[in-house]
């Protein structure tokens, strides 16, 4: 009993000492999270500077070098990932497409998260008629196949980027609403919510300051999964011709176009597909790392010295 409590005290002390480790040093300790954040950093650089630097290369036709296989430096370093059906550099196109792809997906999931999360939390906390109204609206949204909704809406409106983002955001809304509502239903019954009300906090304050921070990590985890889903949905829409319009390009569009040539030139669909997968996976890894870091009760897992067992009892004695 006393030994257990003293070891617990010791580990609490360790945690207290290490808690002041800066975030970047924690990141350096986790190889996966580090790789993921480096990859995302690279993507952000591509997104910021790619189209200006490689815009010309991405549209330069070379009809004699069509469907050039990857892995050769014959056409300079731009040809290292091969060339597409019109002889354009795959690498340059991937870099240029990153801006559209990532911006569309990021803004769509961000809008879904904000609107869906807010509606869901409101539905969970307010209950009653408002909750019914929100949840039934979401049911209606969800009972439509989301692709069909998107097709109809984009066919009626013009297929502009803003509309595309809006449609993607709205069709993916139900996930956030439902999860946020379910979480709030549980959290609002917890004693700390009661305690906060007993301190004289208003309901809005409790929702914003006490409930939202507990719900947010879950929603952020969903966001990273949805990031990939939205990128793929955008590619389907682009493939159907109502998403991003050529000559603008996205990774999804590249996959869609590459599918026609799959038997002769696998790299046309493979590399953009790989880019989508890596981006989604990196977002996932990083979000799981962020969730651990931001959870005060979990953070020691990252702070514990790597050589030792991650069990706190072991590190304490």
């Amino acid at each position: 009993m006393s030994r257990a409590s003293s070891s617990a005290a010791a580990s609490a002390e360790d945690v207290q000492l290490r808690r002041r480790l800066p975030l970047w040093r924690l990141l350096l300790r986790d190889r996966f999270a580090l790789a993921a954040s480096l990859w995302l950093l690279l993507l952000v650089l591509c997104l910021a500077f790619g189209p200006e630097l490689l815009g010309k290369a991405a549209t330069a036709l070379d009809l004699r070098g069509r469907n050039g296989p990857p892995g050769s430096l014959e056409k300079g370093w731009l040809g290292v990932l091969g060339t597409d059906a019109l002889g354009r550099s795959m690498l340059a196109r991937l870099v240029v497409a990153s801006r559209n792809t990532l911006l569309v997906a990021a803004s769509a999931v961000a809008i879904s998260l904000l609107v869906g999360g807010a509606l869901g939390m409101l539905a969970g906390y307010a209950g009653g008629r408002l909750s019914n109204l929100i949840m039934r609206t979401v049911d209606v949204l969800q009972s439509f196949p989301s692709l069909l909704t998107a097709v109809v809406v984009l066919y009626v409106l013009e297929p502009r980027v803003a509309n595309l983002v809006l449609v993607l955001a709205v069709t993916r809304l139900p996930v956030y609403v439902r999860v946020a509502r379910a979480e709030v239903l549980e959290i609002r019954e917890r004693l700390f919510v009661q305690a906060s009300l007993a301190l004289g906090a208003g309901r809005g304050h409790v929702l914003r300051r006490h409930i939202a921070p507990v719900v947010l990590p879950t929603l952020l985890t969903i966001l990273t999964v949805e990031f990939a889903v939205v990128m793929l949905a955008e590619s389907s829409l682009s493939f159907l011709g109502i998403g991003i319009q050529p000559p603008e390009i996205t990774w999804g569009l590249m996959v869609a176009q590459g599918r026609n040539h799959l038997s002769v030139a696998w790299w046309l669909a493979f590399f953009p597909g790989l880019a989508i997968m890596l981006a989604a996976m990196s977002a996932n890894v990083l979000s799981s790392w962020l969730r651990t870091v931001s959870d005060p009760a979990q953070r020691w897992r990252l702070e514990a010295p790597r050589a030792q067992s991650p069990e706190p009892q072991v590190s304490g004695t």
Partner: protein
Amino acid sequence: MSAAAVTEVDDVPLLEVRDLRVEFHSGLEVVHAVNGASFRVNAGETAAVLGESGCGKSVTAASIMRLLPQPPARIAGGSIHFAGDDVLALSRRAWRQVAGRRIGMVFQDALSSLNPVFSVGWQIAETFRVHGEGSAAERRARSIELLERVGIPGAADRFGDYPHQFSGGMRQRVMIAMAVALGPRLLIADEPTTALDVTIQAQIMDLLASLRAEYGMAMVLISHDLGVVYEVADTVAVMYAGRVVESGPCAQVLRDPAHPYTLALLRSVPTGKSKAEKLRPIVGSPPDMARLPAGCAFHPRCEFAREECRRSAPPRRALGVTRAVECHFPLELANGAGV
């Protein structure tokens, strides 16, 4: 009683709960959690609400703090007055000025009463923030002061620690710090020591007593622990099946009970005088609050029950100025105290 600043005239109590009735509607049943409970708490005194689990103690406390979820709960009747204000009739905005500022509350389970994702210091400062008190730096300074006052060693260093890094007793100290942050006149402590082990219980009760004296607070102590109640309370209200069956000065009621239920409660506590001592539990179990027995709710378990107890509910009888009992045949008071 301490030298608390008793400014009010004696017949206007700080808190008066009168004939409170609370129902919970679940499915087809109506659970009568509180069936006309009445008690009063004067400024500066400690009033204990004593009773078994499920007798309506905590529901009463939650009603005073307006924490009952409505629905399923419904306050079916009665009134709660705090310092002259009708608590149940106050607007939300007006109530927010009372909760936290003039009435503080300490809950049973300190771990779940603290938000796991915020540091302890943040949560204490939250009390000031909610009521718009002071700048960020002032709030921090006052929070650290409070942490020191409730006996957390190294308060400034532990300000940024999270609830899971504290022991049970320390967490309860933090909760107490939050509850008394704004110097309330009334502290409601809902089984503040139930989740703690015995040595820590004593420390927490001592802390509550010293804070109460320091701030001149009144305290409503919800408890099922006779020992704790006997030590700290000035008055006691014994609850059974949602009614206050006996009330009066703590020492008188617990030494010389007038209600058979109070007597049975006292008898069920081991005295520790002899090894061969057998516990004398109260036979039977508390009634189903959805189907209360007719007449006196205690009659099925009462060793003195007679025909009349089965037929009619006993009226409230005053035994002297300060004591009251709800029983057809109250026990003889040994020394005639108060009668």
